[in-house]
C-alpha cells in the first residue's frame, strides 16, 4: 500500500428517510478541522435513493465536495449494499481519513467496510486530531507525522485511549454523535457534486427487509434538548416519572433516564443516557435518583451544569455534579417544580 496516494478527509453523510442526520454535519465540522491541519478538503459521501437533493445541505455546513451514490437498492439501510457503496468509494477515491458516525447504522457499517478494505477502525471516538505517531520519538522506530490520532473511552468509561493507524489507509473512525461541533450553516451554498454508482447486484449477503416498524414517539430527541430531567432507579417506579415530566415542562425541557430504568421497562430505550444509550450535553442536566454508574457518567458528564438529587450521599453522581443535593426526591422535586413555576410566572 502506497500511503502517499491517499488524500483528503471523507465523511459518511448518514441519511434516513431522505433526511440528513445531524451526525453528518458534525463529522463535516470536525473533518474541516482535520483537513485544515493537513491542507486538504472535506468530501461528504451521501448514500441512498433519490438523495441528490440533500447534497446542498452538506455544502451549507462546509463539505467541499459531495459524492452521491444513488440507487434504488439503497432506499432503506442494509449492511451489504451500503458497505459495497462505501468500499467502492474508498477504492476509487483513496481518502486518507474516513469518518463514520457511531450511530446504530455507522457501528454496523464501519466494521464491515474496514474489514473489506483491510484497514484499522477505531470505535466511538470522542476526540480526533492530527499529530505524530508515536507521540514522542522512540529510538529505532520511525515517527510518522500527520497521523490521525483517535481518542476514545474504553473499559466502561474507566479509561481513555488514543489510537493511531500508521500503516494502513484510510484511517477510519466511528465518531460518537453529539460530541463534535458542526460549523455555522451558510445558507445558499451549492454543492460540488460528483455522482458515482459502482453497481448493485443483490447476492447472498443482501438481507430481505420484511417490515419496518417505527416507534411511535412524540418526544424531541434528548440529544437536542437544552434541559434534561433524568430519572434513575431511585424513582421507584414508572408512575413517579410524572413529577419529572412536570419539572421538565416548567423548564421547557425533556425527560430522559438511566439504563436501569430502560431495563426495568419503565421508559423506552430512546430516552436512555449513557454508554449504551445516548451522549447528551444539555445546558442543565438534572440527575434525579440516579446513582451515577460510570457508564451513565460517560453519556452526560459534558453537560454544562449538572444538578443531582439523591438520598445516598455517597452516590458517585455527586462526584460530577456541580450542585448536589442529598435528600428525598419525592419531597424535593414536586416542591421544586412549584417554586420554579411561581418564579417563572413572576417574570412574565
Amino acid at each position, binding site marked *: 500500500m502506497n500511503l502517499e496516494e491517499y488524500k483528503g478527509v471523507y465523511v459518511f453523510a448518514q441519511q434516513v428517510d431522505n433526511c440528513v442526520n445531524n451526525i453528518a454535519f458534525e463529522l463535516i465540522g470536525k473533518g474541516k478541522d482535520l483537513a485544515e491541519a493537513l491542507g486538504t478538503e472535506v468530501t461528504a459521501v451521501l448514500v441512498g435513493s433519490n438523495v441528490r437533493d440533500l447534497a446542498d445541505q452538506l455544502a451549507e455546513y462546509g463539505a467541499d465536495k459531495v459524492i452521491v451514490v444513488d440507487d434504488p437498492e439503497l432506499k432503506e439501510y442494509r449492511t451489504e449494499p451500503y458497505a459495497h457503496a462505501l468500499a467502492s468509494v474508498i477504492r476509487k477515491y483513496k481518502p486518507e481519513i474516513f469518518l463514520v458516525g457511531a450511530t446504530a447504522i455507522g457501528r454496523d457499517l464501519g466494521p464491515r467496510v474496514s474489514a473489506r478494505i483491510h484497514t484499522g477502525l477505531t470505535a466511538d471516538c470522542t476526540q480526533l486530531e492530527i499529530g505524530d505517531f508515536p507521540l514522542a520519538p522512540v529510538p529505532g522506530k520511525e515517527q510518522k507525522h500527520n497521523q490521525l490520532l483517535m481518542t476514545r473511552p474504553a473499559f466502561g468509561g474507566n479509561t481513555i485511549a488514543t489510537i493511531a493507524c500508521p500503516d494502513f489507509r484510510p484511517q477510519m473512525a466511528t465518531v460518537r454523535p453529539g460530541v463534535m461541533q458542526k460549523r455555522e450553516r451558510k445558507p445558499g451554498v451549492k454543492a460540488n457534486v460528483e455522482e458515482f454508482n459502482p453497481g448493485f447486484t443483490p447476492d447472498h449477503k443482501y438481507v430481505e427487509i420484511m417490515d419496518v*416498524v417505527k416507534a411511535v414517539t412524540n418526544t424531541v430527541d434528548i440529544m437536542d434538548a437544552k434541559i434534561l430531567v433524568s430519572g434513575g432507579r431511585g424513582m421507584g417506579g414508572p408512575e413517579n416519572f410524572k413529577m419529572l415530566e412536570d419539572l421538565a415542562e416548567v423548564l421547557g425541557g425533556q425527560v430522559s433516564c438511566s439504563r436501569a430504568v430502560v431495563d426495568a421497562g419503565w421508559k423506552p430505550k430512546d430516552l436512555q443516557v449513557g454508554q449504551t444509550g445516548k451522549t447528551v450535553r444539555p445546558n442543565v442536566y438534572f440527575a434525579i435518583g440516579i446513582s451515577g454508574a460510570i457508564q451513565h457518567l460517560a453519556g452526560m458528564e459534558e453537560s454544562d451544569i449538572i444538578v443531582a438529587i439523591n438520598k445516598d450521599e455517597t452516590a458517585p453522581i455527586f462526584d460530577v455534579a456541580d450542585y448536589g443535593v442529598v435528600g428525598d426526591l419525592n419531597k424535593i422535586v414536586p416542591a421544586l417544580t412549584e417554586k420554579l413555576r411561581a418564579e417563572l410566572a413572576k417574570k412574565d
Partner: protein
Amino acid sequence: MKVVVCIKQVPDTKGGVKFNPDGTLDRAAMMTIMNPDDKAGLEAALRLKDQYGAEVTVLTMGLPKAEDVLREAMAMGADKGVLVTDRVLGGADTWATSQTLAGALRNMEYDLIITGRQAIDGDTAQVGPQISEHLDIPVISYAQNLKIEGDSVIVERQFDDRYHVLKAKMPCLITALAELNEPRYMTPGGIFDACKAEITVWGRADLKDVEDSNLGLKGSPTQIAKASDKVRKGAGEKVNLDPAESVDYIVGKLKEKHVI
C-alpha cells in the same frame, strides 16, 4: 442445525482496570466474567437447542484461563467448547481478532454464528461484523428477537427510532444485545458435567486460511498511542438540607447561572 457462539471472557470493569507497561490491558490481573451481550447470544443459541435440537458450540480466543468461560457456557447447556490460544495471537485489535476467529470458524461447521454486540472492555462492536466479512456471509447486528424459518433466520434489528424485521439466508452471523433475553443459570448437573468436559484447544496451526501478517499485535492495523485513566471533572458543591431549603438552594443556583 449447528450454532457457534463466540464468547469473550472480559474483565469485570466494576473491579477497576490494570495496564501493562505498553498500554495494553493486563487481563491476568483482573477479575473476569462472561461478557453480558455474549451471554445473551448464548442464551439465544440454547433456546434454539431447546426448540430445534440445535448443536451449540462456544468459541473463544484468549489466555489459557479463558477455558473457564467455556466451562461456564457448557454448564449452562452448550455442547462443545473451543479455545483458541497462542502467544502469537496476543495484543490483537479487532481486525486481527476477527481474522483469528474466522480462521477457527473455517474449521468448524455452522449454520448460524452468534456474537455479542460488543464487549464491555473494548466497547467496539466490531468483531462480529468483521468476522462475517471475512467469512463472506450476511450479518445482522443488534438483534433484539430471533426465529428460524426454513433455511433462514428472521431477526428484529434495532435502530434508534425503529426496528427492521430482516430475513437472511443461513449461514449468517447475528450480533446479540443483552436485552435479547434473560440468560439462564448454570445447573448443578451442568456444572458437574462441564468440569469434566473435554475442551478443544487450538493454536495458530489450527487456523485455516489466515496469513501470519493478519494476527496478533503485528497484524493489527490500529496501534495504541497512549492509554490513561480518565480524568473526571471535579465534584462541585454538595448540600444536605431539609426539602424546602434544598429547593431554595437549587432555584438560587439556577438563577445565578441565568437558567431562569
